[in-house]
């Protein structure tokens, strides 16, 4: 696999800019759910672990990878579950119900 360093750096830089612009607009109201959501998204690292375990190149890498999948998956699932639970609680006073 050829490592295209420069392209990767461009991608990283652009993604960081997008991240700044998008996240700057998140209301402080939602900073806790934001953090748990980015945590869940960060669990995308699981894809690296899955390939590592699936390739079974050595026992060492398989063991480490398996633990890594467990850690990342628990973040992924837990992160989405709790973010949604938190967001469900946020309600506007809106039109009076009574």
């Amino acid at each position, binding site marked *: *696999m050829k490592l295209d*360093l420069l392209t990767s750096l461009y991608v*990283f830089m652009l*993604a960081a800019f997008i*991240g*700044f612009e*998008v*996240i700057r607009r*998140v209301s*402080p*109201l*939602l900073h*806790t*759910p*934001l*953090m*748990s*959501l*980015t*945590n*869940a*998204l*960060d*669990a*995308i*690292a*699981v*894809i*690296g*672990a*899955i*390939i590592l375990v699936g390739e079974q*190149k*050595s026992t*060492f*890498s*398989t063991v*480490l*990878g*398996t*633990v890594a*999948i*467990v*850690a*990342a998956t*628990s*973040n*992924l*699932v*837990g*992160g*989405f579950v*709790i*973010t949604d639970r938190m*967001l*469900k*609680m*946020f309600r*506007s*006073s809106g039109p009076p119900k009574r």
Partner: protein
Amino acid sequence: MTAGAGRDQVIEVAYLAATALFILSLKWMSSPATARRGVRCGELGMVLAVGGTLLHHGIVDYKWIAVALVLGVIIGVPLGRVQMTAVPQRTALSHAFGALCVTLVGTAEFYLRAPAVPRFTMAVLAMEVILGSLTFSGSLMAAGKLQEVLPQRPITYRGQNLVNLALLAVAVGVAAYLVYRPQQTQLFPLIVGIPLAFGVLMIVPIGGADMPTVISLLNSYAGLAAAAMGFVLDSKLLIIAGALDGASGFILSVNMSKAMNRSFSNVLFGAFGQEPAAGDAAAPARPVRSATPEEAATILAAANRVVVVPGYGMAVAQAQHKVRELYDALTKRGVDVKFGIHPVAGRMPGHMNVLLAEADIPYDKLLDMDEINGDFPQTDVALVIGANDVTNPAARSDASSPIYGMPILDVDRARTVMVIKRSMAAGFAGIDNPLYYLDRTLMLFGDARTFVGSIVRELGGGQG
């Protein structure tokens, strides 16, 4: 075209779609109205990414993948169902898990590639494991402090910063040598082990009130570590997700340190509040005015506008549901009740908002410091519940105060200030609060939950 190539294309398209969905997911977090759509979007992106990865042609065996995925779900679901008051420690724990994954994969990748590791790969790999392992141990420590398994008070000693920085410098030095000579594989454990120790030592001197900044910073590190992993594996999806997470953590840390008028280095190396006892004994007992629940209820009932200022004390006392009863009782009497929330109130960014939303207080009543500060002069009663330093007027006026310059909620500009507090003990920063001695201030001594409950009873609302 071979079947394998076709499959690779499917994977690439899945990753591309996942990337777009992740960005949309964060974009929709901008407002509570669209935020849940954002979560759905993120979930869909994750399903696509993981599904695509499972098609990868290099995978020869699925047994351990399946076992690990199932175990992850079994651990993850309870972690998603913790009490709202435990969210800060849960968040710290999940930073630790994320960092653990990155560190383990980085370590495995190194030993699979060694001794012939290209320089650039080695450099990003070193960054991945250094950031990963220090985030792992640091986040575990933070979670321990938040869960109060570990002492919350900062622990400091002479030369602490020097020791920490020296450790980090050694780790970076070893990493640099490994870039130059990757065949020296026996050195690799050092760039995992030293940062692990550094992570622990970094959090030891940090106290509870600095947690919002530190959690955000660890969030940023976890993201950067994942991005570094993306460079190692040449995965654009990982690079982008890591960069987004890193940017998010970075923005939050900048917000938090601005809200405390402190720099990052000051938070990390400042160890605020380790000598609170110094002035205590010498300070003469100054008179304060205190009031009973009946008196407080009478004043609140006569008010037109009330601003409630919650702090960590409200979370500790689990008073948010009683506060909601108070909100209902006062709203029913036609009193306009709003909440003024300081960015660093609580133990993580947005902590108070989540607790109040859990208690079913509409989010349009929860106002940011900048939004609410102009309202205080027209406010009849500012009710401070378990907040201290974020209301300290010394931050505005007393240049000798350690918190001078920190933006505060101007509660002292309200007509009457009521402060619910357990005792006259100083706040986290160990700084006396002149607010308590103002003529317009009434101290309501007691447990926040019990006291608010008594006020509600006096107002004839709530459960009674």
